[in-house]
């Protein structure tokens, strides 16, 4: 009897042990120790699918107001598009400019309130053009002013909703005397008669050409090349040429690599004897023929340097080389273009992070006398925000800097009358002697009070035009006045 009870006890013990073991095994098997973790997957921000619709039809050119049309005929200076006539940001009209500011301060000729933004101006023989945004009326407006006194001559615009997103306007018109061409924040292209403001044609690049509106709106400044508007689309076509008279597409470049529109602008260059349009798109840098025989043909593409935000435009730095740079941690690259027979190829010579050499976030560097000049990015280490110089043979080697006491930020800079004119973020304009060997400040002054004085400057007939986020100012820089 005792044997039997003992046997039963042992069986119970074994059974209990097995059951506990099974329970532990099942617990181990099915328990998820990270059950309270949330997977970081796309879509957690509840962002709806992107829509290209603006909610209402945009009728480009619908609004027009004429105020007067009589600029001073003696003014012949031109700054016809982004970075001037030669796309190099160097004034060449041989007007002698001041080395230092007058004792009474900068001579402000006129100033105008503008909608919040960073759009600079184009100047053509006494007329100043700026693509503004009227926040109250919700309109892109191309405004034409007299360079002499800032009198508004006419304005042409269209209704389009644009919300504040670190400013609204960003682009600079292109003007060739006959036509004036604009690209709005939301990719609306408008072409008008440069004198009368008569509307000629318009195009919605998102709706008509499947372009994708860049973050913080469009930054691309359009160009006019022999009466043809040259635009980077990054949608159905990579680049496109449109007859300014008729609005007809005269050539277009296929987009086999699905490159997308960046904030960078198309820059005409002549490389290895071939005229081409160079564009730094999101996804790759490319060269497109600008010659009549094969206009619009892709000559070369390179995808070694592909930041997800690109603002500065490509710079030709001699010996068939192109310098490209971008902010947001991207850095820069130096690309060599080679021609073999009738074909072109591209090869990266240098590529580096911003702390390792010259790099720019917003402004396009200058190239003059075999040297490149630039304001360094905020993440450039010890040289951050300093004005620096490099020899294009080695962009990692900074030849000189403006020193730790002369930092500038995201402001623009140009060369005129053998001097640098450099604006900082807060509206202080520095005049420095042009030199490839050292940085020498001649004078500096507060020329505008507002914030974010980042728009590219323009100069013609000795009048320098710049702006902050809400005001445009024209200053007389002539030395003999």
């Amino acid at each position, binding site marked *: 009897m005792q044997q039997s009870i003992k046997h039963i006890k042992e069986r119970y013990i074994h059974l209990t042990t097995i059951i506990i073991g099974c329970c532990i095994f099942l617990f181990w098997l099915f328990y998820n120790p990270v059950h309270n973790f949330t997977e*970081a*997957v796309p*879509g957690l*921000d509840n962002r709806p699918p992107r829509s290209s619709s603006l909610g209402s039809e945009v009728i480009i050119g619908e609004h027009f107001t004429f105020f007067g049309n009589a600029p001073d005929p003696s003014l012949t200076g031109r700054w016809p598009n982004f970075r001037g006539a030669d796309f190099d940001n160097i004034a060449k009209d041989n007007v002698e400019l001041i080395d230092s500011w007058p004792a009474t301060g900068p001579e402000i000729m006129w100033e105008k309130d503008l909608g919040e933004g960073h759009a600079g101006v184009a100047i053509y023989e006494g007329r100043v053009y700026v693509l503004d945004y009227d926040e109250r009326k919700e309109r892109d407006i191309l405004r034409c002013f007299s360079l002499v006194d800032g009198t508004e001559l006419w304005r042409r615009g269209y209704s389009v909703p644009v*919300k504040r997103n670190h400013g609204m306007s960003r682009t600079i018109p292109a003007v060739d005397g006959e036509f004036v061409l604009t690209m709005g924040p939301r990719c609306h292209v408008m072409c008008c008669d440069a004198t009368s403001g008569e509307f000629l044609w318009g195009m919605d690049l998102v709706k008509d050409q499947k372009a994708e509106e860049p*973050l913080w709106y469009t930054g691309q400044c359009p160009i006019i090349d022999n009466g043809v508007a040259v635009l980077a689309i990054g949608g159905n076509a990579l680049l496109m040429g449109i007859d300014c008279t008729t609005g007809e597409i005269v050539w277009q470049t296929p987009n086999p690599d699905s490159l997308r529109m960046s904030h960078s602008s198309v820059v005409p260059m002549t490389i290895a004897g071939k005229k081409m349009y160079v564009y730094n798109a999101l996804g790759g840098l490319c060269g497109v023929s600008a010659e009549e025989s094969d206009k619009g043909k892709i000559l070369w593409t390179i995808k070694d340097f592909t930041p997800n935000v690109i603002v500065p435009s490509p710079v030709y730095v001699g010996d068939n080389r192109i310098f490209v740079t971008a902010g947001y*941690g*991207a850095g820069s690259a130096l690309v060599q273009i080679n021609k073999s027979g009738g074909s072109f190829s591209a090869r990266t010579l240098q590529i580096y992070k911003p702390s390792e050499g010259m790099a720019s*976030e917003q402004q396009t560097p200058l190239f003059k006398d075999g040297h490149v000049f630039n304001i360094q990015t905020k993440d450039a280490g010890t040289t951050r925000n300093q004005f620096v110089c490099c020899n294009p043979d080695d962009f990692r080697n900074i030849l000189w800097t403006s020193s730790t006491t002369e930092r500038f930020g995201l402001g623009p800079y140009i060369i005129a009358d053998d001097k640098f004119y450099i604006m900082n973020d807060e509206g202080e304009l520095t005049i420095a002697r042009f030199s490839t060997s050292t940085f020498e400040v001649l004078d500096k002054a507060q020329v505008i009070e507002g914030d974010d004085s980042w728009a590219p400057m323009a100069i013609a007939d000795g009048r320098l035009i710049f702006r902050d986020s809400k005001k445009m100012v024209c200053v007389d820089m002539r030395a003999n006045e």
Partner: protein
Amino acid sequence: MKKDKIINRRDFIQTGIRTGIGAGLGIIGFGLISRSVEGKTIWQLDPAKCVQCGNCATECVLQASAVKCIHVTDMCGYCDLCSGFFRPGALELTTGAENKLCPTGAIVRTYVEEPYFEYRIIEELCNGCGKCVQNCGAFGNGSLQLQVRQDLCVNCNQCAIARSCPAEAYSRVEPETAYLLKGFEELKITD
């Protein structure tokens, strides 16, 4: 009709004792509070000096650090591409872990309307590493800033982070100015 209440001796003594004890505790408490605040300083870091070296995450005696990222929403741009949220070179602007910068997933974003997003810090997940602060300052407007959370800090006599801070960004501050956020106070004044 109000009836006069007659207090007997026992109630009078009990009430008197209770009142005395209460008043005594009150005086002691007030004295302790006064002692703890008067003339006492607390540790804080100056965002203007901070170089986001990462020491705040590793040197604090607490696990996790009492230093947290604070979002000064008054300054924020509410951008789709937030450099404090996305790692540099992120392939897509989505909430996928492969695109995010914060190693602990402490920053969440919520769509508001085109083109705006709201960014919030989950304090329990933040370890004060400062990666987001560094990128926000380098490419954005610096609305993400590191601060010692005074409700977490044990206020060591010798702050371990302050000892190792290469930028000497830590200092003792008065409790009245417990936080040294940039771009916040100025805006409050104008409000």
